[in-house]
């Protein structure tokens, strides 16, 4: 199935759209994940992260579009694709009446592992996830943080090529958050990891590449460093001025706080995009600059829903406790 050129593409999603009702939960989502990469989905709650992950893992098919995982179509060749995936769903659903070790044994059997291999891997993952003292404990009696570890343990038990984790650090205490991130980074050295989060610093810390998803669409895709640079960026204003562009342009640039001005002509209208340092409202200064030169100010508006606005909706600081 895998072609020569796509050999290092582990997950390829094209044109994913999913409807729960009339409104699409995700719309035309496209992305690729390379083998061994750690990719983060960043977006506010309800942006479509969980929907996307459920489609990748084969839990539900997309209304439209297609995902291949290691060359297998997750709908048409679901079984082969599912063999390659380890999945940690957001709420970490576990059989609360089972003991940790017997739960892991059960999940191992479902993944088609040999009994000997299961036994060996259970002791390994119990070590890795630091569940040592709890392997005989009933899951229902574990705290949220430990249940999270059991969830990770079952996801990595069968050494899947792809690890999909939906909000892996939500609702656990700060010390465990740090441990969990470290663990994910270690896992990412051998495996392809896709994780979602609504916490910006977390994604920047763990991931090599970030997709920002908002209202069901991917609005940006970059490395964490580049995104951070764009974030320090700027607010944008759109100004329409009746006057000679050759003079208007430098005049706008002279306004204090303006970082960049670009000009374009659109249907005989002179439009300027003015970038200003973030947090500054320069509408007053700009209108003065235009009018004092004797030009007419035809339009002045802030550009709606930029990447920065979406970022503002994200948790930009760590929640404490």
């Amino acid at each position, binding site marked *: 199935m895998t072609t020569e050129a796509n050999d290092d593409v582990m997950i390829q999603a094209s044109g994913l759209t999913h409807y729960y009702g009339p409104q699409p939960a995700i719309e035309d989502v496209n992305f690729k994940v390379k083998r061994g990469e750690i990719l983060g989905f960043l977006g506010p709650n309800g942006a479509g992260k969980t929907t996307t992950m459920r489609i990748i893992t084969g*839990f539900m098919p997309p209304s439209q579009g297609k995902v291949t995982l290691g060359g297998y179509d997750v709908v048409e060749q679901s079984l*082969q694709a*599912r063999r390659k995936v380890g*999945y940690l769903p957001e709420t970490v659903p576990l*059989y609360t009446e*089972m003991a940790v070790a017997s739960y892991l044994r059960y999940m191992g059997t*479902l993944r*088609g592992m040999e009994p000997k291999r299961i036994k060996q891997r259970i002791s390994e993952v119990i070590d890795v996830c630091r569940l040592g003292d709890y392997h005989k404990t009933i899951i229902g009696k574990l705290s949220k943080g430990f249940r999270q570890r059991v969830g990770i343990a079952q996801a990595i038990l069968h050494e899947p090529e792809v690890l999909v984790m939906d909000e892996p650090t939500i609702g656990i205490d700060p010390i465990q958050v740090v441990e969990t991130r470290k663990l994910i980074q270690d896992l990412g050295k051998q495996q392809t990891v896709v994780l979602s989060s609504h916490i910006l610093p977390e994604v920047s810390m763990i991931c090599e590449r970030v997709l920002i998803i908002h209202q069901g669409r991917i609005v940006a895709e970059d490395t964490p460093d580049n995104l951070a640079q764009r974030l320090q960026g700027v607010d944008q204003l759109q100004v329409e001025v009746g006057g000679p562009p050759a003079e208007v342009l430098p005049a706008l640039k002279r306004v204090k706080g303006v970082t960049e001005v670009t000009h374009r002509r659109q249907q005989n209208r002179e439009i300027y995009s003015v970038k200003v340092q973030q947090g500054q409202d320069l509408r007053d200064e700009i209108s003065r600059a235009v009018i004092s030169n004797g030009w007419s100010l035809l339009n002045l508006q802030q550009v709606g829903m930029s990447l920065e606005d979406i970022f503002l909706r994200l948790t930009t600081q760590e929640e404490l406790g």
Partner: protein
Amino acid sequence: MRTAQAVAWKEIQVYFGNPMAYIVGLIFLAVTGFFFVLDLGDPFPEASLSNFYQGATIILILLAPALTMRLLAEEQKLGTIELLLTSPVRDWEVIIGKYLASLVFLLSMIMLTLYYPLLLFIFADPDPGPIYSGYLGLILYGSAALSIGILTSTLTSNQIVAFVVSAGVLLLLFFANTGAGVVGGFWATLVNEVGMNSHFGDFSRGVIDTKHIFYFLSVTAFFLFLSIRALESRRWR
């Protein structure tokens, strides 16, 4: 098949580690014991189990749904179905595994009643034919009842709904033949053939008719097939 076995084994452990199943077992023994004594209570008692069979089939209308209601509804409620269905497990393996577990529990419940015929053999001289055939009928009937319970449990995440709907369906199916007198002609034949009770009767009288065996097996297969389809369609909802 190994995964179906794993699913079955896990569910069997849940059954035997859970007070609910023991309560069901206890009620089953109490009710069937009561009907067994009715057999013996006559002034001229007959060494047979016909009342016991009648009582067992009626109480199973309630107990079979009680045994199966948890099996898939709970997975859907807790979300564990998300990990189950993203494992490389075929849908039929899930359904068959769960069904087998409930069947094992039912069989062990039925096995506990074997001391009724044992008592008869010790203290009287019963006709063995109806006793053997009756147990065969009871097992076939029980398997069909469980398959209906599996279907309703697949269709909802609410265990109460699963219980009520399958008990209702089972009740209707069981007594369908009594409606034969109300309607006539073709419908009477149909209703009579669909009714479980009319197919069970021969077993308790000592008659093993392949027609009846085929009936119960096809009911079981039909509802298990629907359950598998329902689980598949769950992915598309």
